[in-house]
């Protein structure tokens, strides 16, 4: 770089300065030659010394004046220029940096723009698809409307169809219920009848073994036993027939107090049961079927006695609210668990080894036939209260 600067400076030197320098050297040399010719002879070393002294005396100021001084000036300038140049380079660098930053931000902008563009395109797509969807939805709606219309058209048919199926199912249910009731009844009856039948066959076998001459007394005992077994079977048969028959009450004005007393006489309490009766004084005339009411009471009383195998108390009383006549049977027996209460009025529901479970079913049937009802309150271990409610105007 410096070499270039020097070259440049030299090239810039004025041509006349160079000529002046050369001429001054030329004159100095001539002067020296002339002096040497006219002067006494000098030794050669003195000539060289004089010559070079003269030369340096003349040429150096010229050189300094015309060559070095502009050169150094130029060099300073060039140093300045370099500095400026460096400065410029730094600035350029900075500018370059700025530029790259600008470029970067520009790129960022471009990226953002692209992103936005993509988003825009996406949303555009969504909008388009939404439009499609709404078209589809509209189509579906019309289709659904059509279907609804069609369904509406067939609805009545369908309802009729379903109703018929339901009816059939119900009929089937009733049939199976009836069948299973028949099955239960059959098994219950079979069991009821098989015990007296066993008694009869056993008696027959026993009589066969007897010697008529020796065992007369035993044979008599056994004929009595046979008769009792036959009447037991007959009783079971008539109970069943009685239950199966739909009985319309033969109502007649009846003295209820008298009817209750007569019924209680027919069902005397076991020895360990104390019976108490609280019946209003004065005749209560009610229009009822006396036989049926007596049967209701008989069943309730029998159940009460059976619920107190270890003894207890039975209270029978009447209450009259004007509209309703109530006959209450309250025992101190085993009681009925709450969850069993709804089922005890069903036919064939029994907890007794020898029960047919018809008692309360008959009670309900007869009470309802009179326009009345039966209600129960019971506590396990404490006792039960059965209430027969009859309308006073019947």
């Amino acid at each position, binding site marked *: 770089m410096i070499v270039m600067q020097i070259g440049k400076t030299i090239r810039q030197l004025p041509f006349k300065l160079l000529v002046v320098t050369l001429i001054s050297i030329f004159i100095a040399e001539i002067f020296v030659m002339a002096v040497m010719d006219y002067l006494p002879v000098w030794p050669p070393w003195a000539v060289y010394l004089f010559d070079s002294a003269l030369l340096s005396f003349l040429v150096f100021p010229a050189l300094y004046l015309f060559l070095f001084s502009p050169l150094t000036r130029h060099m300073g300038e060039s140093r300045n220029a370099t500095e400026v140049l460096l400065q410029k380079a730094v600035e350029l660098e900075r500018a370059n940096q700025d530029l790259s930053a600008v470029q970067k931000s520009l790129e960022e902008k471009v990226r953002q723009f692209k992103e936005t563009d993509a988003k825009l395109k996406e949303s555009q797509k969504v909008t388009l698809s939404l439009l499609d969807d709404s078209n589809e939805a509209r189509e579906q709606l019309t289709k659904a409307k059509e279907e609804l219309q069609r369904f509406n058209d067939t609805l009545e048919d369908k309802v009729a169809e379903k109703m018929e199926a339901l009816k059939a199912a119900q009929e089937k249910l009733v049939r199976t219920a009836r069948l299973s009731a028949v099955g239960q009844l059959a098994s219950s009856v079979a069991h009821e009848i*098989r*015990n007296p039948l066993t008694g009869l066959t056993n008696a027959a076998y026993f009589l066969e073994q007897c010697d008529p001459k020796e065992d007369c007394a035993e044979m008599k005992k056994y004929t009595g*036993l046979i008769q009792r077994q036959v009447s037991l079977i007959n009783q079971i048969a008539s109970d069943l027939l009685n239950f199966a028959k739909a009985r319309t009450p033969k109502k007649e004005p009846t003295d209820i107090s008298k009817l209750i007393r007569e019924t209680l006489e027919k069902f005397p309490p076991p020895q360990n049961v104390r019976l108490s009766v609280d019946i209003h004084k004065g005749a209560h005339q009610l229009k009822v079927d006396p036989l049926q009411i007596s049967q209701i009471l008989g069943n309730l009383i029998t159940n009460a006695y059976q619920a107190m195998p270890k003894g207890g108390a039975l209270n029978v009383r009447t209450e009259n609210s004007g509209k309703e006549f109530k006959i209450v049977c309250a025992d101190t027996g085993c009681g009925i668990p709450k969850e069993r209460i709804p089922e005890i009025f069903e036919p064939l529901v029994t907890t007794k080894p020898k029960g047919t479970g018809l008692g309360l079913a008959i009670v309900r049937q007869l009470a309802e036939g009179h326009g009345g009802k039966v209600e129960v309150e019971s506590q396990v271990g404490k006792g039960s209260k059965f209430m027969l409610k009859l309308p006073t105007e019947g």
Partner: protein
Amino acid sequence: MPQETREITKVLIVDDDEVVRTTLGDIFKKRGYYTKTVGTAAEALEEVKKNPYHFAVLDIHLPDKSGTDLLEEIRKVNFKINCIMITGYSEESPEDSLEKGAKAHLTKPLKIEELIKIFQRETSHDPDARPHL
């Protein structure tokens, strides 16, 4: 074996129906068996503990316990007792009680000959148990 040492056959009859148990009792008494009749499972268990019965005729439907449960309990007290189950319900399967050790399962009304045949079959295995005639 001398005749005198032969033990009299003991039969326990358990049925809640009074007529069924007394008629059965009379029949077996007449044939020379020692018989005892009871109406509940509790009484039956007491009897079994007191006396070494050879046979027990058990009704399946008893007021205090099922006959099959009673059968198991009796066999716990004395597994030598030959138990015969009787029932009025024909729909019951006899396998249950036979599995638990009953000798037979009969339905009411009973065929007495059948019952007696079973007695004879079982006593022929056991020379101690013979009807005392």
